């Protein structure tokens, strides 16, 4: 039975991804802060899909704990999916370093820290797949969320470099740019229905990308074009826009 590790397993997107992999016969390792909260998800997955499921305490910002966290997993996972992220609040973050640091450390530093540990193990073993859920917000900084966006931009660049480096060692890296997704993170926002994916759709796309060894995926295809257009806007115009 192949095994998938889900980092940041409490989010709606992570739950959908865990269920998708379990439904395809993967044992799942669910890692999150306050892992005891995931006990019901554990029984749910085990009962629905008849696979082994375990929960593990994991905090993206406790960098020093990452090597030990990974070493003590009951099995070396074949696929690692890095789902955790923190949107935060732009206005607060630009005034308050605590909020700002949390955004940067969760979305960038924490992800780099744990994926360094995992990719080294995968490289030594010469196999494995790493999936990073990044964000279209990282493709161009906008006034409404550039702290989050820049952390995700860093993460996207990291994943791209990691993919390049790991290619030569038999390890595959997938970058996911989900666009808008209906989740707890976005509950309070009014999202345009056409551009917004359900967590289940993201999960399906992630699974497919792993199977087909895709490099960079956008869950709804037009996001690729939207971001292309946004990136094409000349800076002297872009800086005047209210985005």
């Amino acid at each position, binding site marked *: 039975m192949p095994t998938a590790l889900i980092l940041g397993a*409490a989010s*709606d997107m992570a*739950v959908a991804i865990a269920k998708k992999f379990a439904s395809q016969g993967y044992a799942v390792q669910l890692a999150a802060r306050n892992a005891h*909260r995931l006990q*019901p*998800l554990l*029984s*749910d997955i085990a*009962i*629905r899909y008849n696979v082994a499921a375990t929960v593990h305490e994991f905090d993206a910002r406790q960098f020093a704990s990452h090597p030990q966290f990974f070493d003590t997993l009951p099995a070396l996972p074949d696929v690692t999916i890095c789902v955790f992220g923190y949107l935060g609040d732009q206005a607060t973050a630009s005034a308050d370093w605590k909020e700002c640091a949390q955004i940067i450390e969760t979305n960038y530093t924490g992800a780099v820290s744990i994926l360094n540990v995992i990719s080294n193990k995968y490289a030594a073993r010469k196999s494995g797949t790493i999936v990073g859920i990044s964000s279209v917000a990282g493709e161009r900084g906008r006034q409404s969320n550039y702290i989050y966006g820049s952390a995700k931009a860093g993460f996207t660049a990291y994943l791209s470099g990691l993919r390049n480096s790991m290619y030569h060692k038999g390890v595959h890296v997938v970058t996911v740019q989900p666009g808008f997704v209906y989740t*707890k993170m976005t*509950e309070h926002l009014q999202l345009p229905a056409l551009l917004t994916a359900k967590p289940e759709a993201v999960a399906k796309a992630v699974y497919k990308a792993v199977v087909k060894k895709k490099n960079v995926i956008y869950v709804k295809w037009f996001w690729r074009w939207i971001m292309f257009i946004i990136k094409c806007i000349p800076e002297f115009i872009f800086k005047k826009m209210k985005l």
Partner: protein
Amino acid sequence: MESEEKLFSFDDQLSAIVKQSHHFIPRGNGRCYGDASLAEQTINTLKYDKILSFDAVNGIFECQSGLMLDQVLEVIVPKGWFLPVTPGTKFITVGGAVGSDVHGKNHHVDGTFSNHIIDMDVMLASGEVITCSPERYTDLFEATCGGMGLTGLVTRVKFRLKKIETSYIKQKQIKAANLEEIIRLFDEYKHYTYSVAWIDCLKKGKNFGRSILILGEHAKVDELPEKKKKDPLKLPSRKQITFPFNLPSWVLNSFTVKLFNFLYYGKNLKREINNIVSYEPFFYPLDAILHWNRGYGKKGFVQYQFVLPLEAKQGLIEILNRISDRGLGSFLAVLKIFGKQDSLISFPSEGYTLALDFPVRKGLFEFLDELDQVVLQYGGRLYMSKDARMKPEVLQAGYPRLEVFKSIVKKYNPDYKIRSVQSDRLLLTK
């Protein structure tokens, strides 16, 4: 109506929401037709939907309250189990099944949903969680089953399942020429586990009450055709026609009418038909055309469901007559039989229950008030889960133990922090 909806996935999120709320009502999938799960603030359970345990040997299932029945079926049917009681749609939550204490086509044999509950957890207005059952905190248990969410938010339910050999139903359909005949047939076939009749409300004169009685039993393996024997517990294929918009109610109505006529004139040339069908079309004929997470487009329609004691057949005739005279009614009415039930506030009581829907037009509400009086006069009552308009006196007169119910609500929800548009209208929380 403007309403703020809060969702949660974890216990600590729920207790934080409950503690911060000024007032709220629990909400499942919003499939009750009236205003029972509407309020300025609702707490929606749909993301709180995890399966906690499933004993496939003894048929015991335990889950969080936001899990929908379609999900329960997907897990239990392949293991040889079925829901002990199911309403006519599988897109309701387990919490909603408790809140309305739903009934199925097997009420005369198996009672309501709550008759199969082993125990459950309820979060009170204070945030405290109490485990109740027919033996523990009996008052809370009784007032929560059918209590329309007013005692607290059900968080966890453990209930017993029904053993099946196959996922198929051995179905019998019998045509009845009129109301007398259908009532006689109900009586004759009352040993059947599942029974329901569709009545054509437009027919007058000697065809008044023209109807089809649909009976069913879970099929045994040796009753299946050879091909199906290989995989007797197969789940029905999930081909659902979905609409990207809310279905206008006339579509639904004309669909049911077409279905009726098809059954009546089409393949039902014979008086009686016996066949083997999957559980899906038997229990959930409407689900096939309805997307589970959209509204039913029921705006513009009012549902009306009442029960009359067995001996009040005359009342049934009188009500159907009044409806066809006024020409106000729906084309179809659904008739079922209820067995004995001795609950505090659940709707079913022994007798006949009729469910109809009426297009909203001038004079309808006055007419329904008139019907209420006929129902009460014959010793019957209305189903709160389908109600959006009855007067508090009608509820009072139909439910003899209403005062006891109210006092239990008051005990566990002392400041009426938990309240709905319906409960305010019916003076249950005022």
